[in-house]
């Protein structure tokens, strides 16, 4: 099974060395292969031991890997017409795929791992390969940002590892070498004697992850990177890489819940509110699509984290799925939206002729409205359930009023974001001048894939599946 999972990545890696024009198309279609094993994974009986105790498939990571693979396919589809919108060399294409293969391998390891160490290794692999993907854009800004990403990412990743070792140190006295095993750790979390050491470790891990996801105070670096790199890379960043991080956060916080729920909740709550506070005002001032979407991505990641620690597992996963489909879709459409006259928000949705054009602007407006959780977007439901979970926590705690105030502030901050998005949407649709713009079939196709996935997400089998994940 593991071979099957890794096989497409290896093929892509191999094919990327062929210097032929056909390779470009071939690569895109080969990348469809990544979907097959992930579908298989979902149908397997859980938990399924993929590779001893190190890689174990359960409902949670099968779901996340599946979502990621759909995103991967969508991104590679849109990649085919990248050269129509921006200047890009042929070599860059192949290199992109080469690193995409490495990225995918790293991702499989980190998502499916049942071991903190393996998780980290996969994550590091994926991170390092994306560093190079940024560089496919030959601009000074991209070069600078690639370095930036290299260093900040390295710090963040190191912090995660540091935290992992601290956690390991706290659990080793009871579990020995197996203290890196997530499942075992979860089962024996109550027995950990030095809870303070564990919490230090957890805090460090979380800080690392939060920095990596662009939470407070590092809110703009991801946005800048996504601005500087090509849009499919940005889509990969927000769609897939963050899913690898968030699953780690899911697992670590699950253990931390067992140790001391109050500390965990307070920590994450304060942190995410701080993040959303800053992000909402940054969004309020954002002037181009990339930054806007990337900042809103941070907002959604913060919400997912918050929902998860509030016990709204279902809400967090639904929100995660919706975010993972919506954000890449928007990033990919940015490529088309910005192809004439960069950074222009006013009138960006105007000037699309013909059937393709109509479908395109229609889909993009749907996505834009879905991201601010208007019904029937999955985000509408996930936010309701997520906040419901938070209220539940608030009710069971002692300081109900302050919690309510905090939640209210949170909701008001989200309204600020809402306001900005409505403004952006209206400006795209109703302001500015009309230019003729072109949309290509493959991009449209990838957007449709995302759209369909979103619809599938709110069908009852999927909802039930997500409810089943605890």
């Amino acid at each position, binding site marked *: 099974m593991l071979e099957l999972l890794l096989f497409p990545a290896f093929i892509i890696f191999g094919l990327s060395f062929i210097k032929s024009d056909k390779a470009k198309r071939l690569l895109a279609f080969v990348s469809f292969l990544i979907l097959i094993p992930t579908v298989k994974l979902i149908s397997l009986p859980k938990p399924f031991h993929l590779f001893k105790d*190190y890689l174990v498939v359960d409902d949670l990571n099968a779901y996340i890997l599946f979502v990621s693979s759909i995103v991967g396919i969508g991104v590679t589809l849109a990649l085919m017409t990248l050269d129509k919108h921006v200047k890009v060399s042929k070599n860059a294409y192949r290199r992109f795929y080469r690193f995409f293969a490495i990225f995918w391998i790293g991702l499989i390891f980190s998502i499916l791992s049942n*071991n*903190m*160490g*393996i998780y*980290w*290794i996969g994550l*590091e*692999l994926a991170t*390092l*390969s994306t*560093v*190079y993907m940024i*560089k496919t854009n*030959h601009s000074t800004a991209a*070069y600078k940002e*690639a*370095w930036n990403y*290299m*260093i900040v990412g*390295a*710090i963040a990743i*190191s*912090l995660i*590892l*540091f935290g992992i*070792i*601290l956690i*390991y*140190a*706290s659990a*080793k*006295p009871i579990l020995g*070498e197996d203290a*890196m095993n997530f499942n075992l750790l979860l089962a024996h979390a109550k027995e950990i*004697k*030095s809870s*303070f*050491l564990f919490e*230090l470790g957890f805090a460090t891990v979380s800080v690392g992850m939060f920095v990596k996801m662009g939470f407070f105070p590092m809110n703009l670096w991801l946005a800048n990177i996504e601005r500087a790199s090509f849009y499919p890379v940005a889509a990969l960043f927000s769609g897939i890489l963050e899913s690898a991080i968030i699953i780690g956060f899911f697992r670590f916080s699950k253990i931390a819940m067992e140790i001391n729920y109050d500390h965990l909740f307070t920590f994450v709550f304060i942190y995410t509110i701080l993040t959303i506070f800053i992000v909402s005002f940054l969004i309020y001032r954002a002037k181009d699509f990339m930054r806007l979407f990337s900042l809103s991505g941070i907002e959604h990641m913060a919400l997912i984290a918050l929902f998860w620690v509030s016990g709204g597992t279902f809400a967090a996963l639904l929100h995660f799925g919706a975010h993972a489909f919506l954000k890449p879709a928007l990033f990919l459409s940015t490529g088309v939206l910005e192809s004439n006259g960069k950074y222009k928000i006013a009138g960006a949705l105007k000037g699309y002729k013909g059937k393709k054009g109509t479908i395109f602007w229609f889909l993009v407006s749907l996505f834009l409205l879905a991201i601010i959780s208007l019904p029937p977007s999955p985000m509408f439901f996930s936010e309701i359930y997520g906040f419901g979970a938070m209220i539940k926590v608030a009710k069971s705690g002692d300081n109900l009023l302050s919690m309510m105030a905090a939640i209210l502030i949170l909701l008001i901050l989200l309204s600020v974001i809402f306001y900005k998005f409505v403004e952006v949407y209206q400006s795209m649709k109703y302001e500015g001048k009309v230019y003729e713009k072109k949309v290509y079939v493959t991009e449209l196709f990838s957007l449709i894939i995302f759209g369909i996935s979103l619809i599938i997400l709110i069908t009852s089998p999927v909802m039930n599946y997500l409810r089943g994940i605890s």
Partner: protein
Amino acid sequence: MVDFFIGLFLASLITALFTTRLYRLLVWYSFNSLTLGVLALLIGIKIDDNAMLITGIATIVIKAIAIPYFLKSFSQKFHFIRQIQPNIKIQYAIILIPAILVFTFYLAKPITHMIANNSNYVAISISSLFLSLLLMMEHKNVAPKITGFLSMENSLFLLGITATNGMPMLVELGIFFDLLMAIVVINLLFRREEMKNA
């Protein structure tokens, strides 16, 4: 003996903070890695763990010798600026470094129930983490930043070795693999730039 090397580790890191030359920085990094390797070997012998011995040797080979060498060759190939001036004032740094140490010891005080039964190791690791961050933030150039990142990696290992008596073998090898991968990527990053300039 272990304590002595830990002290040496910390000392070399602190010295690195005050260095103004790139090569000397690399030397200090190399020395820092060397102490780490020796520590691994010492502890490995003490608790009779082969994995630790392998880690120690790999550390010495990769971190103390190979990486500084690569970095030096990069710097020659890509013409780094070798004059590196810390942009945090020395007056501040003098206060800051002891403050960090005090803080981390304060932080680690409540830690109990450890394998090595000595929370000071954790404290020193955390403080070396902070010091590495300090190293990164006091330089603007890329090369010292990379060195800072590598020292961070060292401080992780220090934690792994002293506080937990070594991580599982697979994980450690994976980490080494990633480190090498990082070096490759750094190399590629530099090379692209050079190609573009040429």
